[in-house]
């Protein structure tokens, strides 16, 4: 009796659980990132990207720019 949107959220959550297993499966040291259920787990990645990842890349020149000195040490 679930609505279409609930079914979609459940499917997204199932996909998230698979993804978490993959992301956590890499044998890294203790300090490495860990992944799991959070407030975004009910979203498909493409929905998450469309809603929350709203920045575009902007080119910036290499540091230091020509004729510029590096930032000095600060106390």
């Amino acid at each position, binding site marked *: 009796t679930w609505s279409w949107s609930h079914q979609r959220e459940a499917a997204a959550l199932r996909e998230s659980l698979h993804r978490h297993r993959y992301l956590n499966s890499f044998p890294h040291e203790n300090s490495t990132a860990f*992944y799991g259920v959070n407030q975004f787990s009910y979203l498909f990645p493409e929905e998450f990207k469309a809603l929350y990842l709203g*920045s575009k890349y902007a080119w*910036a020149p290499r540091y230091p720019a020509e004729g510029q000195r590096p930032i000095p040490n600060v106390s």
Partner: protein
Amino acid sequence: LPLRFDWRDKHVVNPVRNQEMCGGCWAFSVVSAIESARAIQGKSLDYLSVQQVIDCSFNNSGCLGGSPLCALRWLNETQLKLVADSQYPFKAVNGQCRHFPQSQAGVSVKDFSAYNFRGQEDEMARALLSFGPLVVIVDAMSWQDYLGGIIQHHCSSGEANHAVLITGFDRTGNTPYWMVRNSWGSSWGVEGYAHVKMGGNVCGIADSVAAVFV
């Protein structure tokens, strides 16, 4: 460089905000950098209006996305005064740009710098110490599932899609990391922050780095 530094310890960084279902990370990162730059000068640490930037920065697309560098260029060129958040509160949707009289109190941007620090993250740390929190653009696709720890894998450089603010770094452990303030609320990640490995341009964190002067 010190082993650990965080502008939060100087009380010049506001608590983490929540962009809700609005793709306005670019505006949140820029406004947060301005708030901190002002507080570093000894002024009060106030919330400034993100909604004003979302509504008025005509070269961006508000909640549909934008570029922090475009927003900084616009703020610098127009010398627009950012008003307090309480005067122009966040609505999480695009709205009509509201104009304020010149006499209105607000904060304008004096200048900004933007550089690619790839391969020079020590210099980037020096910039953080010298100028204040840094606006950066990262690939945050895998951040959807992030709970904590130091992000070292599962993201790429050259695929930037999310603007955030670096407030500090920690080099005391085996894996040095940047402290990255996000705008997805304080329940996400490490009290609203992500930890991203320093060195190696993880998630493209050093590709487009901006400092703000007020």
